[in-house]
């Protein structure tokens, strides 16, 4: 319990402290320190859960099981590396006058608050609090996206706010319906919104209501996941916000939203006894993968392109979870992990690249390997990894997803393959041109933060070749929890 409190309290307090001193020079160090603290606390929590099994604390309001503890650990880790990356990145942004002290303060404190909301969303047992923290996560990121106050960033943030607000409102309606269904079984006193309780009685929940609830929840949280056709906020927000924020949006927030969908799916599956939830997810997943692939092929802005790539991968995960079963769920979780790692690594590299080119337009970025060789390699390897090139972990999960799909849903495989092929062609043709070739760009004034990039890539590589047994065990338990 102390561990969990620590995990939640560190970023919350950090956010408050940074709200006061976030504009100082040392603020970025504080930011890194707070994130490191969160990471350590999360590590301890993880160790605790691995040793002692699921944890129910604070009057059952918080719940840590294998499924969410792995996401908590991942969130804390990526949160930390992103903080490390944002140190030189944001310093440069400030030096170039894009960030004023006030904005730096906002940025730092909101960064921690954002982490806090995600961690709450992940660890809460209460579907209502889940909703509240998701909404809070939206609010903090809206501020982060618009931090540059340019016309484009305002527009992106506005769209983000409205679209996600509406989406999340639908999720609230879903939650109410869920409550309605649970109310009758559990009674209003017994915490009818607590997931563990719901999970225990899911077989008795009224199927009609649950089906309806799931529609709202899927569409609501799905908006945040970035499923086509309710993905429209995503590329704008990724492209216009500061790059560290793009990294955590892609790497973490989407995961958290998908996590919420998964929790709901478990309940719905239990109530419905049919495969409705899975089928809906398969449909959305497939649509997202295919549409995103084609969107990808016309991009000019590098961050926007990788945002679409995130949509594609979230679609793939949704598809995998929709398929269900131990292997597909395992693959989905694995894909969640590697996608977070690799995609945030890509955004780190992209961040440095765009800073050294002074633009996000891919036509203008050339020959990175010559100016900043390690940034170039990071971007190239990251891109290859995200495109599903072995031996990186993305391939491992795609292998599992595709093979399971081939067995369970053969008609879907051609679409997936088409999409993967188109995505490969579109992304790689551009990244190769950015990385290779001659250039007249100048190196960065500050040494780029390469450790996060290569740490992520290294982990991604490891997961493709060797998944440690305890991690396997953990994934399998988690997969079982979501109906494997």
């Amino acid at each position, binding site marked *: 319990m102390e561990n969990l409190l620590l995990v939640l309290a560190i970023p919350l307090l950090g956010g408050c402290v940074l709200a006061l001193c976030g504009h100082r020079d040392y603020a970025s160090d504080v930011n890194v320190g707070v994130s490191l603290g969160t990471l350590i606390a999360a590590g301890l929590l993880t160790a605790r859960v691995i040793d002692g099994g699921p944890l129910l604390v604070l009057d059952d309001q918080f719940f840590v099981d294998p499924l969410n503890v792995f996401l908590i650990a991942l969130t804390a880790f990526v949160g930390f590396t992103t903080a490390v990356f944002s140190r030189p990145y944001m310093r440069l942004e400030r030096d170039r006058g894009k960030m004023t002290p006030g904005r730096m303060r906002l940025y730092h404190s909101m960064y921690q608050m954002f982490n806090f909301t995600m961690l709450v969303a992940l660890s809460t047992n209460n579907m209502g609090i889940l909703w509240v923290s998701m909404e809070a996560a939206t609010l903090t990121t809206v501020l982060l996206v618009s931090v540059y106050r340019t016309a484009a960033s305002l527009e992106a943030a506005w769209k983000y706010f409205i679209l996600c607000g509406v989406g999340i409102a639908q999720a609230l309606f879903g939650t109410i*319906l869920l409550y309605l269904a649970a109310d009758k079984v559990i009674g209003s006193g017994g915490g009818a919104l607590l997931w563990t309780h719901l999970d225990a009685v899911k077989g008795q929940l009224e199927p009609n209501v649950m089906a309806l609830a799931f529609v709202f929840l899927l569409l609501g949280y799905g908006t945040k996941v970035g499923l086509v056709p309710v993905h429209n906020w995503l590329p704008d927000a990724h492209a216009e916000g500061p790059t560290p924020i793009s990294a955590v949006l892609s790497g973490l927030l989407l995961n958290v939203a998908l996590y919420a969908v998964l929790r709901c799916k478990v309940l719905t599956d239990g109530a419905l006894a049919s495969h409705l939830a899975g089928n809906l997810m398969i449909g959305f997943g497939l649509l997202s993968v295919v549409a995103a692939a084609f969107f990808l092929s016309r991009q000019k802005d590098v961050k926007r392109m990788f945002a679409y790539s995130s949509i594609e991968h979230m679609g793939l995960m949704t598809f995998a979870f929709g398929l269900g079963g131990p292997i597909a769920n395992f693959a989905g979780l694995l894909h969640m992990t590697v996608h977070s790692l690799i995609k945030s690594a890509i955004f780190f590299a992209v961040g440095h690249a765009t800073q050294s080119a002074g633009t996000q337009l891919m036509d203008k970025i050339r020959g990175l390997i010559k100016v900043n060789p390690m940034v170039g390699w990071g971007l190239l390897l990251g891109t290859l990894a995200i495109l599903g090139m072995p031996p990186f972990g993305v391939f491992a999960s795609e292998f599992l997803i595709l093979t399971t799909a081939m067995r369970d849903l053969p008609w879907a495989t051609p679409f997936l393959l088409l999409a993967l092929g188109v995505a490969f062609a579109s992304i790689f043709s551009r990244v190769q041109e950015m990385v290779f070739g001659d250039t007249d760009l100048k190196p960065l004034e500050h040494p780029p933060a390469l450790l996060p990039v290569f740490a992520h890539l290294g982990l991604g590589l490891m997961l493709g070749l060797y998944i440690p047994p305890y991690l396997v065990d953990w994934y399998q338990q988690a997969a079982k929890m979501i109906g494997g």
Partner: protein
Amino acid sequence: MHAYLIQSVNLFAAVLLLLSFAMLSQRRILTLIHLFTLQGATLVAATVVVAYLTDQHHLYYSAAITLVTKVIVIPTLLHRLIDKLNVKWDVETLINIPTTMLIGILLVVFAFNLALPIAKLSSSIVHSTLGIALACVLLSFMMMITRAKAVPQVIGFLSMENGLFFAATAATYGMPMVVEFGIAFDVLVGMFILGVFMFQIREQFDSLDISHLEKLKED
């Protein structure tokens, strides 16, 4: 007395729906804000009646929260906002009003139809209100789609929250308190952020017309 009260909840529900329609068709921002305030007040009244009927004490608190946020704070904020931004004039809608109304009616039918099986199951004393709540949500959604200015869009958004809140109250006698507080807090913070935003948007574009916000797209 009890029966009257139940009927009064139904009456409030009907009023909410009516107000939603009114907002859908309303062109003036100021009137929109008034209608929104009225909707909030109706909601508070309905909540109080339900609380009394079912003897759920926490519903009184949530009624109080609603009163504070939706009837007092947010409308005041909105008033100030439009005063400062000077955007009282008529809003032009993207789809003309009669069509919108027609679609709205279809939506109501659809929502009722959708809620029918649930309403039958519901043990709540006011089971049929769920359909109305859903209809309100959908109508507000429509409103958000059709409005071309930022402020009405936000009002649409808030009105959607009202619908949701009514669903929570009428169908399930309110959510747990923690959640209610959380929701209210979020809505408030959201409003603040929106307010700040609108100033920034106006600063950038000299207008609150969201047609300026169409630069980010695929070409």
